């Protein structure tokens, strides 16, 4: 069975620093895979390598068996690789409606249309409405993104990545910075993602990880330290020592 | 051939002195100052006025040009430029274009639009022979002065405490502030020195480059080329870039006179094609 996403000995060095050390990660189709590790382990660097923001120093990235290592970000997105950013990267001056519209248009291949007014395509509009409903954004569709409460922005962040109908979705700390009363909604949205999407979740919060993940990889100093089912990892003494044993990391 | 080499080096060093202030300003304050040439023009015109109306000898005018342009720079930095550091580049461009327009019009109004002549003292005019090669005295003088300046600048930047503070501030302004480095004072000082050097360059260059109210606009592109190609992270980059530019221009004008300024522009475009960050910039 071809992995949805696979890396082969992926490396990234910055000057003398090795941020990613021969990482070979396999993400099965429909997986619910979590990536954890102490601060500075290189989790976000890995996500940047996977999505194409950073070029690797060595190694390959395979999406659905296809080598995408040399493809730029937008081409990987079109092949079905979506990601969210740890710190919201949204279009502050646009509304969620416009933002989702953009993503849907690009995926539907009409993003380059010069002539027809945006929003004319009925199918695209229906899709936007569906997305908004799924991610609880219907009420907030026409507010300026920068005025939305943080939790809702985070939801939009995920919605935008999801709009591209990815087969692989990389979620970089989706709950980070979200106030307590908005977290449940967010986590619910993540939990109800369809099964045909493989999800790689980068998280600090162990509650979220154990609630969600079916498989966990532990990243320490840029290399995969341990990998397995959640209860295996929870019981692994090395992991506890390196990470869990240091006490609860901040939520 | 050797004469061309010599002339090219002289021209290049002059360009360096003119442009180094811009390079440091851009690297330090991230400010695109298209009005840099106006300070050079100021230095040039001050020299002309001092010489023709008050009979001050040429060499004595040079430090005055430096100080006056530097003072002008310091004043403008404190009052106007300072407010715009955090604005987008477009604002810098618009602002400095506005300053240039005002300066050009003001000079045109007060001094007229004809080209100004600087009468060099006899010991600086003419040529002398070295091993059968004719060397222009003025160009030799230029090389000497500019060379000394380059060395002095490099020493200041790399050896003195001011220099290391400057480099720290260029590298990361916020961190430098956090370390207690008086960043504002450094900005002001650097801007003043940069403008002063431009003024000095204007005074030195009046004879070779020609001095008229359109000077800042005519030579803006040259300064920008030096800065873009040479990078903004030190002295060496702009220096080499200026030398290359000077040599290319002189050689181009000699071997293919009809090409005029083509050589420079084409060279710049070619370099930027290959290395968009300039020849020396470290990849960010």
């Amino acid at each position, binding site marked *: 069975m071809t992995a949805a996403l696979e890396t082969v000995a992926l490396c990234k060095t910055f000057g003398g620093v090795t941020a990613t050390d021969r990482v070979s990660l396999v993400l099965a189709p429909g997986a619910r895979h979590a990536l954890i590790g102490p601060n500075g382990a290189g989790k976000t660097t890995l996500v940047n390598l996977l999505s194409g923001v950073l070029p690797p120093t060595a190694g390959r990235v395979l999406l659905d068996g296809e080598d995408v290592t040399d493809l730029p970000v937008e081409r990987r997105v079109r092949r079905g690789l979506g990601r969210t950013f740890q710190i919201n990267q949204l279009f502050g001056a646009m*509304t969620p409606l416009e933002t989702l519209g*953009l993503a849907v248009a690009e995926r539907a291949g009409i993003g380059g249309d010069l*002539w027809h007014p*945006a929003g004319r395509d009925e199918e695209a509009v229906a899709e936007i409405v569906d997305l908004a409903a799924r991610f609880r954004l219907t*009420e907030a569709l*026409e507010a300026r993104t920068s005025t939305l409460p943080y939790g809702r922005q985070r939801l939009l962040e995920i919605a935008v990545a999801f*709009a591209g109908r990815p087969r692989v979705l990389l979620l970089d700390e989706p709950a980070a910075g979200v106030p307590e009363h908005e977290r449940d909604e967010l986590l619910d949205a993540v939990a109800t993602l369809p099964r045909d999407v493989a999800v790689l979740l980068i998280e600090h919060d162990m509650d979220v990880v154990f609630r969600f993940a079916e498989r966990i990889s532990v990243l320490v100093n840029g290399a995969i330290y341990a990998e397995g089912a959640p209860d295996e990892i929870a019981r692994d003494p090395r992991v506890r020592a390196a990470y869990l044993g240091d006490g609860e990391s901040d939520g | 051939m050797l004469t061309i080499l010599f002339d090219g080096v002289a021209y290049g060093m002059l360009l360096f002195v003119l442009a180094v202030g811009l390079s440091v300003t851009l690297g330090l304050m991230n400010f695109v100052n298209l009005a840099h040439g106006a300070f050079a023009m100021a230095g040039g015109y001050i020299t002309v006025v001092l010489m023709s109306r008050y009979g001050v000898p040429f060499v004595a005018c040079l430090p005055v040009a430096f100080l006056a342009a530097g003072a002008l720079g310091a004043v403008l930095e404190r009052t106007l430029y300072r407010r715009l550091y955090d604005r987008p580049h477009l*604002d810098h461009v618009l602002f400095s274009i*506005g300053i240039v327009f005002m300066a050009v019009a003001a000079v045109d109004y007060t001094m007229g639009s004809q080209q100004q002549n600087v009468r060099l003292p006899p010991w600086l005019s003419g040529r002398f022979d070295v091993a059968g090669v004719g060397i222009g005295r003025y160009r030799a003088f230029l090389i000497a002065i500019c060379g000394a300046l380059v060395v002095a600048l490099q020493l200041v930047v790399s050896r003195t405490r001011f220099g290391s503070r400057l480099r720290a501030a260029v590298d990361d302004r916020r961190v430098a502030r956090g370390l207690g480095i008086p960043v504002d004072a450094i900005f002001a000082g650097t801007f003043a020195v940069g403008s002063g050097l431009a003024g000095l360059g204007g005074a030195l260059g009046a004879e070779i480059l020609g001095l008229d109210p359109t000077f800042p606009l005519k030579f803006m592109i040259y300064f920008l080329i030096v800065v873009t190609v040479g990078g903004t992270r030190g002295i060496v980059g702009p220096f080499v870039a200026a030398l290359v530019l000077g040599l290319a221009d002189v050689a181009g004008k000699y071997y293919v006179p009809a090409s005029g300024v083509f050589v420079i522009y084409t060279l710049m475009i070619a370099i930027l094609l290959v290395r968009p960050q300039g020849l020396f910039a470290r990849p960010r």
Partner: protein
Amino acid sequence: MRVAAAFAARHRWRRAEIAFWVFAFVAWAVLSRQAPIGNEIAILALFALSLDLILGYAGIVSLGHAAFFGAGAYAAGLFAKHLSGDPLLGLAVAAGVATVLDFATSFLVLRGSDLTRLMVTLGVALVLGEIANKATTITGGADGLQGVVIAPLFGLFAFDLTGRTAFAYSLVVLLVLFVVARRIVNSPFGASLRAIRDNPLRAAAVGIPVRRRLVAIYTIAATYAGVAGALLAQTTQFVSLDALAFDRSADVLLMLVIGGPGWLYGGIAGALVFKIAQDVFSGLTPQYWHFWLGLVLVVLVLTGRERLHERIARLVRGRRGAVPVPPGGDAVRADRV
């Protein structure tokens, strides 16, 4: 459905817009003695509109937009002089030349940082200026291109000294191209441009092919500028070096900045204000108009352009799109008006 309605509201022609264009044509009909100035304003407005497409919508700062303007002007002038005086054909030729020139330079312009782009755009304009200057047999050099004779439009309307045909001609071309630009800006393509301008990283992460879109808009803008230059050549039947001069690039930048980049009417408004101000100031101190221009720029930047534009925006309500507020929306605030 609400969503579709929201989109539709964005690109509906507002009454103020229609009124403006009606007013423009009324001005043509009534102000017959000011026709030459009206013509100039229309041409400048088109030029500023073209710069808005790249500056206001794609965020590219260009100091050399006059390159395309001048290229179009010379192309149209030379075409009329040597091949055919037909004005519309000349426009087409000029547009083609500008487009070709753009393709040649677009990949240069889209590399590197802000500063590099500034340099390259400036450099290209200067190179063209030099070429025009030196190739005197073709372009007439510093004396300008003489002997440009334009045939009557449609064989009926001659370009005479009153300038009325010229004004109408330029105004119609401006309107047509404006309508096209408006459609482009309100299309998915236009939305993707705004996204690129706002957050290029996110734009790529949404699947937008950033470079391709930027090349496309840059090309369109260049073509528009070329047409503007052609209009100048055809209506004044003369082309001089200042069509390529730095001054022209700086002037159009200022016009756009005064009017406000990013809403298409900024260029037109700016051109109007600029031309009127130029007439007023030139009356005061004919030679030193640039001094006042510089002063305006400095003051404008120092006091903050955004505040000025926000005040104007509040006057011209709904320029960003009438947004129907959903019932009971508490976390919702109507889009900035």
